[in-house]
């Protein structure tokens, strides 16, 4: 518990976390608002097929915030401080204070999950009034099963970003790959046109948990299980590597 508390306080004191909050909370509301405005005429005319998606679209892109959170949680530990302070790395201090490496990793993952949950709830709380305000009585109903799916998507994405960064120790590659993959020009969507196997990539499967896209492949539950499997396997690999590797370098 004390380790989780320590990890939480480390995370909340990172400057980058405010960018993550900004993207994770205001981003979804902004995208939902843009989408509502763009779709409003079609919705009023009753010809849109995307009505239930307008709010969830924001949640699909707001996940960028928790990608940043998951990456920063790890990469900040490996950032080298200046030569004046002896080229220190925070990870050495962290591992001295809590000597069980698995405990450090679990505490950090727990802290990331907690903040992700908080961000997702705040994002949902921001989206609902925005869609109500713009669309009035046509605002999509927010079913709790789909909201739970979106929360799962955020949580697993954050954990995948987290485990991926444990492996690379540097935030650049996980950030780039994951951010592009949750955008409109996702690698997975492109690969899905070439091979059906790409539907089992984590982001492509995870999106089926809460968005009913035209090319949906999995049921929400199956998509969630596929993504859970990815997150679990990646976390296990990250834990083994983190346990065996020299902390520095």
């Amino acid at each position, binding site marked *: 518990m004390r380790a989780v508390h320590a990890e939480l306080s480390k995370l909340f004191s990172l400057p980058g976390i405010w960018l993550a909050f900004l993207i994770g909370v205001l981003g979804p509301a902004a995208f939902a608002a843009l989408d509502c405005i763009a779709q409003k005429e079609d919705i009023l005319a009753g010809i849109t097929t995307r009505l239930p998606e307008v709010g969830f679209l924001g949640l699909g892109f707001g996940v960028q915030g928790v990608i940043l959170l998951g990456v920063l949680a790890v990469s900040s530990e490996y950032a080298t401080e200046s030569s004046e302070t002896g080229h220190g790395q925070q990870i050495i201090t962290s591992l001295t204070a809590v000597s069980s490496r698995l405990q450090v990793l679990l505490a950090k993952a727990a802290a990331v999950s907690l903040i992700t949950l908080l961000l997702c709830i705040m994002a949902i709380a921001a989206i609902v009034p925005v869609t109500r305000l713009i669309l009035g009585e046509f605002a999509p109903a927010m079913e709790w099963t789909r909201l739970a799916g979106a929360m799962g998507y955020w949580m697993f994405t954050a954990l995948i970003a987290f485990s991926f960064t444990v492996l690379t120790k540097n935030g650049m590659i996980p950030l780039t790959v994951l951010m592009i993959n949750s955008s409109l020009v996702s690698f997975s969507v492109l*690969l899905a046109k070439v091979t059906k196997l790409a539907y089992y990539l984590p982001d492509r499967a995870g999106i089926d948990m809460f968005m009913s896209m035209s090319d949906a492949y999995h049921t929400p539950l199956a998509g969630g299980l596929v993504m859970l499997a990815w997150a679990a396997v990646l976390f296990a690999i990250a834990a083994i590597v983190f346990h065996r590797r020299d902390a520095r370098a």
Partner: protein
Amino acid sequence: MNIPAGRKFTRILGAEWGKLVTLPAVWLILAGTFVAQCVVTAAYTSVALQEGPGMYTILNAGLASMKYLQAGFMMLGITATASEYTGGQIRTTLTTLPWRGLQLSVKHLALAMIAVPAAFLMAGSGVLYSLTMLRDTSADIEPTLMAASLAGATGYLTLTALLGAAAGAILRRTAPALVILLGYYFIVSPLAGAVLPDYLPDAAGYYMYAPPSPDPHNTLTRMQGTGISILWTMLFITAAVVLHRKRDA
């Protein structure tokens, strides 16, 4: 120190070049971008083959990977400038090269010396691959159009790298610079593209390499696109140089 201006310039260029080519991240990013480029071009070409003759021209398939490639070049640019701020290297740099404006400008020049051949190689390999794969199904293209598109693609990627470097120098941290640039290029711009004007960096840059469109409305010519992209990059570099001269390192 009294050094003739010309020798000062070559020495600074040598120093900045030396720093860039000995940075392992630079070569990792270039290699990773090249691998991603091969995968993406192969995927697009295979989609083009599935869709049958006439759907895709060779240039469309070969340069379809540009929107992914630009991420690699952004990373390259950001690394080039933001890496100075990890571990306090910037203080060593400014002790030996106390001419701040000149130092940062020459750093951009050294970066361009790496970015131009890399960009040409990557854009060229994509076009070459789709040329060999789609030779039988697509109509022939004129060599002048191909040369112009390749030159435009090389120029666009180089300008993107320089813009990334300027953003990295302004923000002085890798992760926020990367998140902001990727967020704009991959999330905001594709989603709000219809609302945003044509002369923003990515939209204008698109016309540098895009094959001429049959729709003459709302498009820029290749030269207009190039000019606007250069202006954006110069604007960012100028802002970076001014801030670099004013701020405490």
